[in-house]
């Protein structure tokens, strides 16, 4: 049981979606603060100091991007964007402005809860946490560099291993191309993500043996990658 309830600010103009989110999140033990407009959301963000903001991009009064800009002036608190499928460009823009993650409408409850949990959790660090990470059927021993998929050893090259390690340590979190490039190849490569794509392909070839069941690496077009436990 959590000792303190996490506060979630929902900025969404559609009353049905707001109601559905409020009920679902409350039943998962979150304290929910609903806001109908961008301006109300900004006001509540400063007064209530939520732990996470769920932000709809298409608001009646101001652009969702304005809300992100305004919040980012004083806080790094996680912002999860709720976007519709034909807003690809706006989604990328929201990310550039400092959004941390997004969920595409329509979404399932499980997906939304996973995003919220990931944004509230700090990354696993090699010093403090378990040296073994388990995601679905995949086990990664960070110290011994042993990877197993359903008890079968998987051989990785050093760069493939580093890439997998970074993704796994931030399980559920969306990591941008730039961040991944910097972590694995260093600062000089941060703008050219073709290497990254090739290595992701090789990694998939090795850890996603059964493409229908093993979907560990999720591609977020135009933004980056995230590692997830495959949904059953």
């Amino acid at each position, binding site marked *: 049981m959590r000792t303190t309830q996490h506060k979630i600010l929902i900025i969404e103009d559609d009353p049905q979606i707001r109601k559905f989110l409020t009920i679902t999140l409350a039943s998962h033990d979150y304290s929910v603060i609903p806001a109908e407009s961008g301006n109300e959301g900004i006001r509540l963000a400063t007064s209530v100091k939520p732990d996470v903001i769920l932000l709809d991009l298409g608001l009646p009064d101001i652009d969702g991007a304005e809300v992100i800009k305004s919040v980012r002036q004083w806080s790094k608190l996680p912002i999860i964007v709720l976007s519709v499928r034909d807003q690809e460009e706006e989604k990328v823009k929201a990310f550039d402005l400092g959004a941390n993650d997004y969920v595409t409408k329509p979404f399932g409850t499980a997906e939304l809860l996973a995003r919220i949990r990931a944004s509230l959790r700090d990354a696993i660090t090699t010093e403090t946490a378990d040296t073994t990470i388990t995601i679905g059927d995949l086990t990664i021993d960070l110290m011994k560099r042993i990877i197993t998929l359903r008890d079968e050893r998987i051989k990785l090259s050093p760069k493939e291993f580093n890439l997998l390690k970074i993704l796994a340590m931030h399980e559920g979190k969306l990591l941008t191309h730039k961040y991944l490039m910097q972590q694995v190849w260093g600062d000089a490569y941060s703008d050219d993500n073709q290497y990254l794509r090739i290595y992701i392909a090789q990694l998939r070839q090795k850890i996603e043996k059964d493409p*229908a069941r093993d979907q560990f690496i999720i591609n977020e077009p135009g933004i980056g990658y995230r590692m997830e436990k495959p949904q059953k």
Partner: protein
Amino acid sequence: MLQFQFHNLIIRKDLGSPMRRWTFSILLTIAVVTATAFISWLLVYVGFPSPETLGILFVIPVLFSAIFYGLVSALIAAFISVLAYNFVLLPPIWHIGLLEIENFTKMAVLSLVAIIASALVSRIKKLAGEALQRERILSGVYALSQDMLGISNIEDIRFAAEAKLTSLLEVKVNIILKELIDPSNESLKFCLNNNTPTGNGTKHFPNDKKLYLPLNGSKDIIGIMCVEGSTSKPLFSESFSSKILATLAAQTAIAIEKAKLAESHEKKLLEVRRDKFLSALLSSVSHDFKTPLVTVIGVFSSLKDSPEIINNFAHREMVSGGLEEAQKLDRFISNLMHISRLESGIESIPKEPVLLRDILASAMKSLRSIIGSHNFSISTSPNFPLLKVNSALMELVLMNLIENAIKYGPANGDIKIIAMYDGVAATIDIDDDGEGIPESERESVFQKFYRSKHGDSKIAGTGLGLYICRGIVEAHGGTVTAINPHDGKGACMRITLPENTLIQVAIEQEIEYL
């Protein structure tokens, strides 16, 4: 040949100042006379029997000057020739006797030659000049109409006409369409309202630097051709004949009007097509969208009436069935969203480098709920390149093709995805174990709203999936076709992507951890 010479002459006439040209012509005349005199003297020196008859030679310099420099030069040539003849050929040699009677007859004859020759030449020149101008008009009109050929967009026509006219007339020409005429410009307004040439060189607003010519369509004035000029040199009367300008303006007007007609025709066709599409869409939506909603509404109404059923296992199955149907509806809608984008003709879709595996993974994730116990295998040739495509649209293509493979294949069937690259084009095959597509229907399945007659009516679908796939892949310059399946059974769909959608990336080789 003659025309060529005159053409050169005209050009030469345009070069240098009049004073310089005059001096040059006199010097050249003297030189030719001197040369003739020298040749005559040489002939006499070697023993030509009758030196007096050589006087006929002096017709040459006179004709030369008449042809090339006109009457005055020819008369001067005649005069100098008489002197030279007198000096070189007429005894006493090396002495000029001006008052001798022979000189007067000689002078009269040569002058007559000069007058006749230069009159003839100036007539020929005038005719040649006119012919040249006619040719310029004709070739200008031809070039203009040639340039307009095949352009059906009004803006493009306007640009092409402006460029052609500017190069033809050697002054800046603008074409202003009627709708875009600035009403605060008095000359433009006058030209538009009175449908008459206005500005530089005309009766109206002659002090305007520019010349405005109305462009007349079959019914109404459709725009104004605006020729840049300067006040020192009136455009309309001198530099270009009014005929050229009028012909060019008419030609431009015809082209613009033709484009306008074509555009409105195109619009009407598009409207008809859109109407047809909408009615087909409505019938598809009303049928195929209602089916999943039956389940969704059914599930929700029973949940509302008796919420305790959520704890009952059998009923939970029903709830997940409702969810599945709702997700199907979501996929239908994203197909429709993209089809409306393709229908409205978005040709320049944004592309980014992306991995086939990434797109495949996303497509599989969206299909998660309908994947039963199918066996999936993905095989990619080792040199398979990065794709440069619109990943959202390409994901939709793969999603539709894989969804079909799942829907039409047996529940535990094999679905193979085979990606190959031959160094030029890339192919992605989706091969299932279903009933397959009869050869006769392999083309028609890609038609909008087409449903196979072979007993798939029980399988829900909008008949839009393959149509959209083809539309998207073709927008990338590729093709989608139904081919013979690799293992001889089921259906196999092949996506072919051309070279410009592929990126080769060379990467370092690494040793694997053991």
